[in-house]
C-alpha cells in the first residue's frame, strides 16, 4: 500500500469521504483466525516443494518466503467508528538464481502443482534475463541455521485486545479533542502482524513472528471568522510493540512545554493537548524567515535522520540500483574509501541496528536468512560504512551481509531496505531544558510535518507539528508557517549539542517507499533532543 493510499484510507490530511470504499490489499478474516499461526511443519513442506522444483529446473540458489501478513485497522472520526477491518494476505514467493541471474515468481495458490509452477516461472525468468547480465550475481556466503524461530518481544498482543476496547479508546481520544476545542478529529489504530517463514538452499528454515502498532490522529481547528485552519497530528510513533505501547506510565513521559512520549503513549492526553495547541496555532505569530539555531525533538529529528542519513547510506542507492526511481546518493564509494569524508561534526555518531527492542526494523533474521546485528555508519562525524545485503557485500569488501534485506509481502521480491538508523545520545548530562538554555535566537521543533529531499540527498526541507520561538535561552511563544531548508553535510556539521541517554526516544516510518514496483517498509530512528546552529528557515504562508 502506498503512503498516499493509506492517508486516503485513514482520512488523514485528505478527503475522509473515501472511507466508505476501503481499498483492500489483503484477504479479510475473522480475528480468531489471525491468532493461530500456520503450522511450521506445513510451511516446511511447501518450502521444500519450491526448493526442489527450482533445483530440478536448473536453479543454483533458491529461497522461499511463505508469508501471512495480517493487518487490522480501526478508523474513527469525531463520535463515529467509520470502519474496522481485518485483512490477511497469504502466499509464497520464490527467488532463484539461474544462469547467474535473479528470477522471482509468487503465487497465492499453495498446492504442490502451483508452487512447482511458480518455481519453474522464476527459473524461466532468470534464464530469459541472463542474456542481459553484465556479470553474474555474487552472493556473500551465508551459513544455514537449520530450523529456528524468532518472536518480537511484545508484552500484549494487540490483535487479542477486543475490537470494542480499541474503538472505545479512539472514541475517548476524539471526545477529549472535541471537548478541548477541536472542530474535527480523524483517529486510527493500525496493527500489523507478519508471520514469515523463510527457507533457502543454504539450509535455513526460519519462522518469525513480528508485531507493529501505530495509533495516530489529526486534529483540525478552524477559525470561523477568517476561514483559516490549522492541524496538529499525534506525537505518537509507530513502534515494533504490542498493545503495551498504549498503556501509559510516568516512565514513558517527558514533561515540558508539551508532554512527549517514549515507549509508552497516552493518546487521550495527547489529543487534549493537541486540540489546545491547534487552537493556539491559528493565532500564532508567522515566522520571520532567516537563520535560526534549531532545537529538534526526537519526534521530529527521526525523519531528518531517515531522509538525510538512512537513505544516502543504502548501498543499492550508492551503486545506482535505484537511479530510476528513489535516486542515487551523494555518499559515493570514493568518500567511504577515503575514510576521511566529513559527514558531520565530531559529536555525530549514527549507527544501524536491526536488533533494537521495540523498533520497527527489529527482526531475528532478514528476508534472505541473515542474522541481524548493529554497526556504525557515521563515527565521530566520518562516514565509515553502508547498509548492504548478500549480493552487494563483496563490493564493500565484506564477507557477510549486514542483514538489510526485506520484502513487504510474499508477492514482492526482497531487496535492500533501510535498517533502523539512530543518533547516539550525547555523553554529557544534558536535558531538554539544558539544550534550550543556551540558545539566543532559535526555534524548538516538535513532531514531524512536511518533508522533501532531492534524489541524491543533498537538499532537504522539513516542517513540523509545533514550533516555539526561543529568545535568550527561553521559550517566547508559538510560531507557525515554519520550514527549514538545508544541505545534509552542512546540517550535520552544524550539530553542536545532543541531549543525553535519558532523553533518547524513537520515531519511525510505517510507509517508507522504494523500489519498482513500489514497496513499503517500516523503520525506526532514535535520537535525543539535538541542536543545529544557523539553519535557514523559510515562511510557508501564501495567499491564493
Amino acid at each position, binding site marked *: 500500500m502506498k503512503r*498516499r493510499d493509506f492517508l486516503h484510507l485513514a482520512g488523514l490530511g485528505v*478527503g*475522509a*469521504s*473515501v*472511507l*466508505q*470504499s*476501503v481499498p*483492500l490489499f489483503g*484477504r*479479510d478474516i*475473522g480475528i480468531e483466525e489471525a491468532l493461530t499461526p500456520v503450522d511450521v511443519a506445513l510451511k516446511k513442506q511447501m518450502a521444500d516443494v519450491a526448493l526442489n522444483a527450482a533445483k530440478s529446473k536448473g536453479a543454483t540458489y533458491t529461497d522461499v518466503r511463505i508469508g501471512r501478513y495480517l493487518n487490522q485497522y480501526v478508523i474513527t472520526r469525531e463520535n*463515529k467508528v*467509520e*470502519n*474496522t477491518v481485518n*485483512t490477511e494476505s497469504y*502466499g509464497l514467493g520464490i527467488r532463484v538464481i539461474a544462469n547467474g541471474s*535473479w*528470477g522471482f515468481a509468487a*503465487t*497465492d495458490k499453495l498446492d504442490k502443482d502451483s508452487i512447482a509452477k511458480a518455481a519453474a516461472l*522464476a527459473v524461466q*525468468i532468470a534464464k530469459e*534475463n541472463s542474456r*542481459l*547480465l*553484465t*556479470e553474474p550475481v555474487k552472493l556473500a556466503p551465508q551459513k544455514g541455521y537449520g530450523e529456528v524461530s524468532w518472536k518480537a518481544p511484545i508484552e500484549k498482543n494487540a490483535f487479542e485486545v477486543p475490537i470494542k476496547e480499541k474503538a472505545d479508546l479512539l472514541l475517548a481520544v476524539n471526545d477529549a479533542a472535541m471537548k478541548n476545542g477541536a472542530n*474535527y478529529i480523524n483517529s486510527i489504530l493500525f496493527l500489523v502482524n507478519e508471520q514469515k517463514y523463510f527457507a533457502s538452499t543454504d539450509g535455513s528454515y526460519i519462522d518469525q513472528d513480528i508485531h507493529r502498532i501505530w495509533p495516530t490522529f489529526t486534529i483540525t481547528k478552524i477559525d*470561523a*471568522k*477568517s476561514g483559516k*485552519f490549522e*492541524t496538529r497530528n499525534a506525537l505518537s510513533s509507530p513502534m515494533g510493540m504490542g498493545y503495551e505501547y498504549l498503556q501509559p506510565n510516568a516512565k514513558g513521559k517527558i514533561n515540558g512545554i508539551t508532554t512527549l512520549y517514549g515507549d509508552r503513549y497516552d493518546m487521550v492526553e495527547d489529543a487534549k493537548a493537541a486540540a489546545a495547541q491547534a487552537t493556539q496555532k491559528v493565532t500564532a505569530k508567522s515566522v520571520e524567515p532567516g537563520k535560526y539555531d534549531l532545537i529538534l525533538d526526537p519526534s521530529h529529528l527521526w525523519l531528518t535522520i531517515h531522509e538525510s542519513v538512512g537513505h544516502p547510506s543504502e548501498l543499492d542507492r550508492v*551503486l*545506482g*540500483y*535505484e*537511479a*530510476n526511481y528513489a*535516486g*542515487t546518493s*551523494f555518499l559515493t564509494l570514493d568518500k567511504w574509501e577515503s575514510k576521511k569524508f566529513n559527514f558531520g561534526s565530531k559529536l555525530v555518531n549514527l549507527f544501524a541496528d536491526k536488533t533494537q527492542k521495540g523498533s520497527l526494523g527489529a527482526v531475528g533474521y532478514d528476508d534472505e536468512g541473515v542474522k541481524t546485528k548493529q554497526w556504525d555508519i557515521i563515527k565521530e562525524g566520518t562516514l565509515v560504512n553502508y547498509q548492504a545485503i548478500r549480493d552487494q557485500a563483496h563490493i564493500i569488501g565484506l564477507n557477510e551481509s549486514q542483514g538489510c534485506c526485506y520484502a513487504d509481502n510474499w*508477492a514482492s*521480491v526482497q531487496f535492500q531496505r533501510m535498517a533502523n538508523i539512530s543518533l547516539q545520545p550525547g555523553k554529557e548530562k544534558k536535558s531538554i531544558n539544558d539544550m534550550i538554555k543556551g540558545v539566543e535566537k532559535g526555534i524548538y521543533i516538535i513532531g514531524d510535518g*512536511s518533508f*522533501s529531499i532531492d*534524489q*541524491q*540527498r543533498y*537538499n532537504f*526541507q522539513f516542517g513540523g507539528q509545533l514550533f516555539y520561538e526561543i529568545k535568550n535561552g527561553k521559550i517566547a511563544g508559538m510560531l507557525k508557517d515554519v520550514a527549514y*531548508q538545508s544541505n545534509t553535510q552542512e546540517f550535520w556539521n552544524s550539530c553542536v549539542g545532543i541531549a543525553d541517554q535519558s532523553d533518547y526516544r524513537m520515531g519511525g516510518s510505517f510507509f517508507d517507499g522504494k523500489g*519498482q*514496483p513500489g514497496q513499503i517498509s517500516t523503520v525506526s530512528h532514535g535520537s535525543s533532543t539535538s541542536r543545529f546552529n544557523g539553519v535557514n528557515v523559510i515562511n510557508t504562508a*501564501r*495567499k*491564493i
Partner: protein
Amino acid sequence: MPILTKEEAQALMKKVLSYSKADECEVNLYGSDGGNIRYARNSVSTSGGVSQSTLVVSSAYGKKSGVATINEFDDASLAKVVKRSEDLAQLAPENPEFVSFLGPQQYADSKTYVESTAAISPKDRADAVATSLQIAKDNKQIAAGFLENSAGFSSMMNSHGLFAYNTATNVAFNVTLRTEDGKGSGYASKGYNDFSQLDVKKVTAVAAQKAGGSSAAKAIEPGKYTVILEPAAVAVLLENMMFALDARQADEGRSFLSKPGGKTKLGEKLVDERVVIYSDPLNTDLPTKTWADDGRPQEKITWIDKGIVKNLYYSRYWAQKQNVKAIPGPDSMIMQGGTQSLEDLIKGTDKGILVTRLWYIRSVDPQTILLTGLTRDGTFYIENGEIKFPVKNFRFNESPVIMLNNIEALGKPERCVSGESTNHYLLPPIKVQDFTFTSLSDAV
C-alpha cells in the same frame, strides 16, 4: 484463476449472492496476471511474475456492515466468505454514515483492454530491455529502468441487481540514463493500455538526449522565473489539486476551496480562464474504467471550466446529506491545451527555465496547496527562444493554484505518467511566469 469472461464472472458472483442471508450483499471480484523487469548499471537486476485474484463480499444488516475476502473459489469457500462477512457485520458498530448499496446502473463499454498486450511474455520484456540497454551503450551512458505489464478484470454484483464488468491491460515503462561521470542525468516515461504503442527505443533516446544535454550544469540564483513545465512535471503538481477536490473537505472548512462561514469556492473563478480540466473514461487517448469501485458510473465530468470550479466529488453519504448528485472521484485527468509543441513554447521564450521532471512532491500547507519538491533529470536555461545551457536543480515552493493563475501559454496535451502516484493523465506542457524556486540542490 485466469481472467474470467463476463459470463463466467456473472455466474460465479450469482452463486456467491445465493448464499447471502443479510439485508443487503455486494460482491466484488478481481483477477490479474502481470510481470515486470527492472534494470540498473546497464544490467538486469530484479524481475518477476505475479498472479493474484480476490473475491470481496460486503454484507449489511441495517447500518451495520462487514467485509470479508477470500482467494479460493470452491463452493465451500464461497459459502464461508459470505458467512464471515455476515458475522463481521453483526459484530460491527452501527455506522450512521452507511448508505445502502446501489441498484442497477447503466455503464458505457470501456476501451481499456487490448488482447495482444495481455499476452506479453518474459521474453518480450527482456527484448524491450535489450533495446533500451543498447541505446545506453551506444551513448556511453548508464541505464536504470523498469518495464511492467498487467492484464486483469474487475467485476461487481449486488443483491439490488447491480452488475458491472471490466477488463484492462496496462504497460508502463520508465528509464533513467546517466553519463559515466555522473554529471548528467535524463529521464523519460510512457504508459499505455496497448503495448504496441510503446516505443522503448524512442523513450530511451529521449532520456539519453537529456542525460547528455544536462551534463555539467551551471548554478543560477534561485528566485522567481518564467518556467516551461513538460507534461510529466505538470502532472505531479496538478494531481495534488485534483486529489483535494473533495466536497466534504471543502464544506467542512478544511480545504483550499473553503471560505469563511462554511461556504466554498464551488462555482467561483479559481484560476486563469484558459484552464479547462475534465475526466472522460471514453477518451480514446486515455481510456479508463466506466464505473467506480462502489458501482457508480464514471461519466465525463468537467472539474474546472474556463478557470471556474464546476464540480467537486462526493461520497454517496455526503451527496445524500447535501442533496446533490454523488459524483465519484475521477480515475484520470485531462487538461485542455493549445496547438503549440514544446519546441514552439521554447521558441517563444526570451528568458526562462525548462523543467522536464519534478520530484519528491509534498504538501507544505493544505490551505493553499503549497507544494515543495525539486527539479530532476534535466533542467535547462532558455534564452532568446533556445536552450542555452543546463542548470543545477532547484527546490521549489509553489501552489498549483498560484501557478494556474500565472499561465503564459499552453501546449498540445499528451499522455503522461505521474512519477509520484503513477497515475496516467493527458496534459499539456505549460509555460508560467513567476514560478518560485527557493534553493539550489547539488543533486544530479
